[in-house]
C-alpha cells in the first residue's frame, strides 16, 4: 500500500494533465495579450494582471501537490466536513466579506481576494458523490431526491444572497449528475418546457403564449386520446390541472419578468432575443464582442496584434470576455481549437468516470464534467452572442486566482481519485 501510494505519479492520467497545462498556458497568453499594452510590455510587471495571474498559476502547484499526496480515501471520508466548511465560508462572507461590483462574494487577504463560491463547487460535488455513492441510496425515492436537492441548493442559496446569479446557475448542472444516477427524465422535460415557455413569453408577450399553449395542450390531449382510442374518456382532473398549471406558470413568468427581474437582467434577454438594439449602451458588450470576433477572421491577427483587444473595446476582456481575445488574435482556427480542447477535457473525464470501479469517484467525475460543461456553455455562449450576458468565468482561461484554484481543485481531486482506482478494492 505504501509503495503504491508513493507511486502516485505513475498512476495519474497524463492526458488530463496535458490538457490542463495547455488550457492554463494558452489562457495565460491571452490574459497577457488582453491586459498588457505595447508600452507596458517592455518590462515584465508582477503587479499587472498578467503578472498576478502568473503568480496564481505558480501558487496552484503546491495545491496540486497537496491534493495529489492526500490519501484518496480522505476526500470520501471528509467530504461532509469539507462541505460544511464551505457552507461556513459562504455564510461568513456576509460578516467579513468585501463588496465588489455590488456583490458580497469576496474575502480580502492583504490585497488578494478569495471567492469562496469558486471552492464551494468542488466540495458540493464531493458531498453529492458521498451521498449518492451509498449502496442504499435510491434516487427514485422522493426522500432521497430531497436530500440531493438540499446538498445542491444550500450553497446555491447563500450564493444567491450575495448575489451572484451566474454562479447559482452552475449548481443546476448537478441535475446532469442526478440524471446519470437515475433521476427521472420528467424533471428535464419539465425544465425544458418551462425554459421554452419563459423565452416565448418574454419574446411574444403573455397573451399570445397563453392562448397558443392552451391550444397546443388541447391538441396533445386529443392526440393521446386518439392513440388510445378513448375519444370520450379523457382524464379530466389531469387535463384541467395541466391547463391551470401552464396558465399559472405563464402568468407568473410574465409577472416575474416585468416586476421581479431587474432592468439590467431584462435588458440582457431583450438584447439576446433581438427585441432591442443598442450597440452603445446596454448592448455594447455583446456588440463589441461580436465585432472583435468577426475581425479575427480565419487565421486571426496574430499574438499581441489584436488592435481591438489593445484598445479595450470589449469590457472585462481578461476575465469573462477572454474568449474574444482568443478569437481576435488566433482567429477561427484558434477559437475552434479551444472549444475542441474543452471537449477533449470533458470527454476524457467522462470516459475515465465511466471506467471507475468506485461509485464515489464516478459520481464526482460526473459532477465536475457537468460543472465544467456549464461554465463553457454559458461563458462562450455569452461571448459569441448566443446566450444572455451572465458573468461567470471560462475555466482556466479567465483572469482570477479563486477561479483558477477552484477549477484546479475540482480537476485534481478527480485525478487523484482516478489514480487510485487500480488498488482501491
Amino acid at each position, binding site marked *: 500500500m505504501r509503495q503504491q501510494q508513493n507511486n502516485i505519479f505513475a498512476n495519474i492520467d497524463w492526458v488530463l494533465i496535458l490538457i490542463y497545462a495547455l488550457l492554463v498556458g494558452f489562457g495565460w497568453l491571452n490574459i497577457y495579450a488582453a491586459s498588457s499594452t505595447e508600452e507596458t510590455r517592455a518590462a515584465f510587471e508582477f503587479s499587472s494582471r498578467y503578472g498576478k495571474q502568473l503568480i496564481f498559476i505558480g501558487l496552484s502547484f503546491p495545491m496540486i501537490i497537496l491534493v495529489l499526496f492526500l490519501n484518496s480515501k480522505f476526500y470520501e471520508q471528509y467530504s461532509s466536513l469539507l462541505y460544511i466548511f464551505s457552507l461556513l465560508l459562504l455564510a461568513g462572507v456576509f460578516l467579513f466579506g468585501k463588496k465588489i461590483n455590488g456583490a458580497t462574494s469576496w474575502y480580502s487577504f492583504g490585497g488578494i481576494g478569495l471567492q469562496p463560491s469558486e471552492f464551494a463547487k468542488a466540495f458540493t460535488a464531493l458531498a453529492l458523490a458521498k451521498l449518492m455513492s451509498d449502496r442504499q441510496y435510491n434516487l427514485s425515492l422522493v426522500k432521497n431526491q430531497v436530500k440531493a436537492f438540499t446538498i445542491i441548493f444550500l450553497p446555491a442559496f447563500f450564493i444567491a444572497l450575495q448575489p451572484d446569479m451566474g454562479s447559482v446557475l452552475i449548481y443546476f448542472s448537478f441535475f446532469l449528475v442526478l440524471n446519470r444516477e437515475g433521476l427521472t427524465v420528467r424533471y428535464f422535460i419539465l425544465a425544458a418546457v418551462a425554459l421554452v415557455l419563459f423565452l416565448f413569453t418574454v419574446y411574444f408577450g403573455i397573451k399570445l403564449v397563453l392562448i397558443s399553449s392552451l391550444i397546443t395542450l388541447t391538441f396533445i390531449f386529443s392526440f393521446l386520446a386518439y392513440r388510445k382510442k378513448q375519444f370520450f374518456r379523457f382524464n379530466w382532473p389531469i387535463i384541467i390541472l395541466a391547463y391551470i398549471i401552464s396558465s399559472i406558470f405563464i402568468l407568473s413568468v410574465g409577472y416575474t419578468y416585468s416586476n421581479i427581474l431587474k432592468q439590467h437582467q431584462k435588458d440582457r434577454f431583450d438584447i439576446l432575443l433581438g427585441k432591442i438594439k443598442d450597440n452603445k449602451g446596454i448592448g455594447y458588450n455583446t456588440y463589441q464582442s461580436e465585432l472583435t*470576433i468577426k475581425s479575427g477572421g480565419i487565421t486571426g491577427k496574430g499574438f499581441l496584434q489584436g488592435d481591438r483587444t489593445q484598445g479595450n473595446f470589449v469590457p472585462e476582456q481578461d476575465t469573462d470576455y477572454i474568449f474574444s481575445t482568443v478569437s481576435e488574435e488566433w482567429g477561427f482556427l484558434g477559437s475552434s481549437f479551444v472549444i475542441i480542447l474543452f471537449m477533449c477535457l470533458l470527454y476524457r473525464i467522462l470516459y475515465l468516470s465511466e471506467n471507475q470501479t468506485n461509485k464515489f469517484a464516478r459520481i464526482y467525475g460526473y459532477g465536475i464534467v457537468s460543472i465544467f460543461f456549464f461554465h463553457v456553455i454559458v461563458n462562450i455562449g455569452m461571448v459569441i452572442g448566443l446566450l444572455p450576458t451572465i458573468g461567470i468565468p471560462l475555466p482556466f482561461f479567465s483572469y482570477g486566482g479563486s477561479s483558477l484554484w477552484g477549477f484546479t481543485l475540482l480537476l485534481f481531486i478527480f485525478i487523484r481519485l482516478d489514480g487510485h482506482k487500480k488498488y482501491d478494492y
Partner: protein
Amino acid sequence: MKRNFLLVFLIALIGFIYIGRLFQLQVLNKIDNSPISSATIKIEYDYPERGYIYDRNGEILVANQLSYDVMVVPKEVSKIDTLEFCNLLRITKADFSKRLKKAKNYARWLPSVFIKQLAKSDYAYLQEKLHKFKGFYIQKRTIRDYPIKTAANVLGYLSEVNELQAKNNKLYENGELIGKWGVEKYYEDALRGKKGKKHFNRNNLNRITGSYKEGIYDTLSTSGKDITLTLDNKLQQFGEKLMTGKRGGIVVIEPNSGEILALVTAPSYDPNMMVGRKRSIHSQRLFGDTINNPTYDRGLQAIYEPGSPFKILNGLIGLQEGVIDEKYGVYCNGGYRYGKRKHEFMRCHCGIYGRPVRLKKAIAKSCNSYFADVYRKIINKPKNTKIGFDNWSDQIKSFGLGNYLGYDLPVGQKGLIPNAQYYDNRYNFGWRATTNISNAIGQGEILTTPIQLANATAAIANKGYYYTPHVVKKINNIDIKDEKFTTKRQTSVNPKYFSPIVEAMHEVFKTGTGRYSQVKGIEICGKTGTVENFAKIDGQRVQLPDHSILIAFAPKDNPKIAMAVFVENGGYGATIAAPITSLMIEKYLTGKISRTDLEERMTNLSLEETYKKQLQKKNSIASTTE
C-alpha cells in the same frame, strides 16, 4: 449505459453549435480589417509645406507663414473663468457660447477650431495663459503669405475644402486647403505636396495608445514643389501702377517662348486680403463688388471687339490669299461704299484723298476703306461665299483667336470668330461678304480677349508662329516640359508675307497713330485701336467713350516683347494705350524709365469719373456694332 449517453450527446451538440457560430462570425461574416476602416486606428496627417511661388527672376511672390488656431475639445472643457477667457480672445460671451455649441454639435471628443488664425501678437500673449483653460489649445498651421502685393489674379488664393468636395475627392479631408483660383488652382497637384500619414492605435475612449504596428503603414510627407513663374515682377507691378484708376488689362508675352511676362488686370486687389482672420469679410467685399469687379481678370476674361489691330490680320490673309500685294491701292476719299443704298457706306478717318492708299499707309493711318476692300476680296475669292468665309475664319483662328488658348490659368473666354455656319443660322434671308463688312476693321461680330490679341501679336512678331502662352516657367527648378507649351504652332500665313506688315507696324510708331509714344533707341511696332461702344439707356442708344486699344511688339528685329493693352472707355488708342505700351516696353527692355513725367501722368490719370457717370445712368454697358 443509456443514461450516460445524454452528456456525451450534449457535449457534441454544443461543440458543434458553437463552432458553427464561430464559423458564421469569423468566416462568413468577417469584417474588413484594413487600417483605414477600422475603428481602432486613428489616422493623423502630417501636412507638408506648400510650395513657394517665385517670379522669373527668383523673387518670392508667395511664401508661407505660421498661423495659430485656438482649438477646443468640448468634452475636456471644465469650469473655466469664461469672462477672463473672453477678454483674452476679445470675443463676447454670447459668441463664446455660440462657438462652443458649434464645436459640441460637431463632436464632443474631437478637436475643432474655436478661433481661426490669431494674430502673432495675440498668440504670444495667449500661450502664456491658455494652460489655465482646460480643453483649449493652440494649433499651428501654415497659411499663405504674399510679401509683394501684386498679381493677385495670377497667383490665385486658397480656400478650405468643404464636406462635399472631401467626399468626392479622396485626396482631401474636410477643412484642408485647396487652390481655388489662378496658379494655386491650376498647379494644385505640384504645390500641394503629399501629406504624410501616421496610424495610431486608439482605445475605446478614442485616446491614442501607441503607434499602429510600429508604423509600418506610416508615410512621410513630401513637401510641395516650388514654382517659378514666367512673370517679371517688376514689369507686372509697373503695369499695375500704370493701370491705377482705370479698367482694363495688359498682357505681355515673350514671343519666342510664349511666356507671359505680365498679366495685369485693373482694378485688382491685395492678395493678402484672402488670408488671415478677416478673410471672410474681405472675400465678401471682393466678390460682392459687382461694379469694379476686382476678382474678374480683364486680361483673360473680358471680351472686347479688337478694333483696328484686327486689320493687321486681314492684311496678312489678303497677302497669303494673293488678293492683294504691297503695291495694291485703294482710293479712300473719306469712306468706302459697299452697296448702292444710302447707308451702305463705311466712313474713314485716314484723311488720304485723291491718291490710292497702299498697304503700308493703310496700316499706319488705319484706313478703314482699304481693309474693307481687302476683306471683301478675301471672302469673294472663291465663287462660293461660304467657302471663302470659312477659309478666312480658319486663317484668323490659326492665330489663336476664337477659342480657348489653352494657357495654364483656370479662367478664360472663347471670344468669337464667326464662320459660315454661324451666319447661316443667324441670317434667314441669306448673307454676303458685305453683310458684316465691319469684320474687316475688327468690329462687327468679332470678339477677342486681351490675351488672345497679345498672342496674335506674338505670332506676328515671330513671323508666323506662336507658343501657347503660359505663366509657369519652372516646377521645382526644372523647366517645364509640357508639350502644350513647347510646341511651335504655325499660323496659316507664309512667313514671307510678314515683313511688309511688320514694316507697316513700325511705321505706326514712326509716323502713324502712335508717333507721339516713341521711345528713343527702341523700334516699336504696333497698331492702335479705338473701339466705339454703346449702352442702351432708357431704351436709347447712348454712345460711351471709346475703348482704347493697342497691340505692339519690340524691338522690330528679334522681338523680345509682345503685348496688348485694353483700357475701357479710355478714348483713342493713341491717347492712353499707346503711352502705356511704350512705357511698359521701355521698362522691360531698358529696365528704367526715361520719361518720368509721362509715367507720372499715366499713373495719375483716372477714369473713375467716366465710370461713375455710366453708373449714374444705371444701365448696363453693351458694346455694339457700328
